């Protein structure tokens, strides 16, 4: 199979502008683009802080406010005053608060007089309440109130994060960037698995492929379609980066990941385009095919490693997302990215080997 760049160029130029006049192709481009813009507008770059409610006996102590201030960087503490210990207990039983503070009358004064006043901490037996954080912070604040110097300047940092566990991913990247990146992966998926095969399937359905292959080889046609898909991908990702004002901290990792994922998915898309009898048929089934292909982009960072997690890891979009996340943040949020490159490379080899095999059999 010989390549003819004159043919490839002619078909590429025709498809580049003709294909987007097809509503199915246009939708495949616009929907993920719109979703990315939506996420960009909906979320900001601040890490969402966990909210906790503390109910306390109102005795004029400054402890609740000091506690709120001390935790302001990590927990959004909501203070709710109560008239008595019983009311504090009731509020906790009603699950309207996460922690109760039973502060006796004259707590602040007794503290300053070094009389060791009693302080009761009540916790609700519930989910997600950072008990250690809250109780540890109470101890810290009380020491500050007394004027005891802190024995150490403690800093907390997650070292060698487990592969994409939720908190570190969102802390380092931010929800906005994470979801915009996931939408970019979706865009690559819809271009590769939907738009490109629709372009090819339409050629076969309308029999224009017969006219093209009278002078051009199937390989010329397929390469032209692949280049069209990669051009759409480049323009789409470029526009999204510009509109969301995001720029990868490590462009090499980011763009190599995006390119490898695009090449792999476009390859599979071209295979897919040859399997369906019509572009409409492909469009109808495309959603089903797309779902498992692009879903990993949205869950790869938060899914706990289990059997299903390993399946997700094998899907190229998951690896593309990992490279995009690391490339965008400039940090090793996902460890061992060479595995991501290797998995994408394997998918590329599989896709194009199958494609070449299929093309070699067409004339027989």
């Amino acid at each position, binding site marked *: 199979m010989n390549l003819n760049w004159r043919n490839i160029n002619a078909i590429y130029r025709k498809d580049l502008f003709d294909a987007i006049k097809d509503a199915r192709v246009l939708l495949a481009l616009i929907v993920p683009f719109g979703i990315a813009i939506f996420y960009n507008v909906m979320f900001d770059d601040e890490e969402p802080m966990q909210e906790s409610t503390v109910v306390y006996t109102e005795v004029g102590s400054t402890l609740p406010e000091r506690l709120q201030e001390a935790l302001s960087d990590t927990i959004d503490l909501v203070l709710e005053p109560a008239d008595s210990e019983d009311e504090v207990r009731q509020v906790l039983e009603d699950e309207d608060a996460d922690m109760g503070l039973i502060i006796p009358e004259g707590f602040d004064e007794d503290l300053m007089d070094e009389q060791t006043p009693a302080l009761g901490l009540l916790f609700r037996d519930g989910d997600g309440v950072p008990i250690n954080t809250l109780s540890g912070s109470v101890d810290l604040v009380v020491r500050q109130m007394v004027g005891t110097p802190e024995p150490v300047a403690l800093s907390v940092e997650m070292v060698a994060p487990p592969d994409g566990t939720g908190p570190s991913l969102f802390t380092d990247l931010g929800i906005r960037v994470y979801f915009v990146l996931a939408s970019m992966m979706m865009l690559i998926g819809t271009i590769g698995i939907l738009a490109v095969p629709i372009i090819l399937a339409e050629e076969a359905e309308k029999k224009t492929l017969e006219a093209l292959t009278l*002078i051009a080889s199937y390989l010329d046609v397929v390469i032209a379609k692949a280049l069209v898909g990669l051009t759409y991908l480049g323009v789409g990702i470029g526009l999204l980066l510009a509109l969301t004002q995001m720029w990868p901290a490590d462009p090499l990792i980011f763009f190599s990941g995006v390119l490898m994922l695009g090449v792999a998915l476009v390859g599979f898309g071209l295979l897919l385009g040859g399997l369906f009898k019509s572009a409409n048929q492909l469009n109808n089934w495309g959603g089903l095919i797309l779902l498992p292909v692009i879903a990993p982009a949205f869950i790869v960072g938060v899914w706990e490693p289990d059997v299903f997690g390993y399946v997700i890891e094998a899907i190229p979009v998951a690896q593309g997302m990992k490279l995009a996340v690391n490339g965008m943040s400039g940090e090793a949020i996902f460890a061992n990215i060479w595995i991501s490159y290797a998995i994408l490379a394997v998918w590329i080899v599989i896709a194009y080997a199958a494609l070449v095999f299929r093309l070699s059999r067409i004339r027989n």
Partner: protein
Amino acid sequence: MIQTSPVESEQRSTTPDSEVMIDVRNLSKRFGDIKAVDNISFTVHRGEIFSFLGHNGAGKTTTIRMLTGRSRPTSGSATIAGMDIVTQRDDILPIINVVPEDQNLYERLTGRANLELFADLYGAPRQRVDELLERVGLEEASKRATKTYSSGMKQRLLIARALINKPELLFLDEPTRGLDPASSKELRDMINELSQQNTTVFLTTHLMEEADDLSHTVAFISAGKLVAIDSPRELKLRHGERSAAVLLEDRSEQVIDLHDAADARRLQEWMEAGQVLAIHSREGTLEDVFIEIAGRSL
């Protein structure tokens, strides 16, 4: 409308060049147990209009697919302009073209853009696009998307597309299907003109009259086998009745056997008496010949 100079049938009957354009030897194509084309052989000379007739599924399209390099023969060989269809496919493609049965145009593109695409593919100058648009009478419509074209306009654009590389061999698959009588006539004139210019035309059609009117040679294919091949006149003479219908003054029609001496004398008497108004040959039509050979009509 297709603008061509009218070509008389006597001109069409001019002998094609002696140079062989298509040489098919024992060509076969099998799909599993099915023999789509079964050991056919024929030659077509440069400038010849060659009609390939047969039922649906008889093997016409498979033969064309092999000759145009889209399908490999199972056995046998064929050359086009002396080049092997398998080993020299890439050298053959620039000198042939096809007007397909399906109107496979890019419907969202304009007529001009359709032609420009194929001009680029064949490396033809853009000037050729203008020439062809004028030749098929689509200059004014050339800026419209082809989905707005009538069936006849699309067919003319397909013909223009097939001529973009000035092919030495043109395959026409049911070229007048869907055309009105006037457009069909213009297309037939155009085919004759191409033949005059030494372009070889390989035609498939269901219209026997069209094949009879246009062709230097007609080949009948049935169940993958070539069952007859000759000029339309020879086929009709060989397989038709050797008789004539004589219309007399009294409006009666008498049938005479051209081999019978008594009938010859009767004809002489009528003519001497001035009673003959018209004599019609009853040599039969290609349709009759096809039915006789293939067992049923197209």
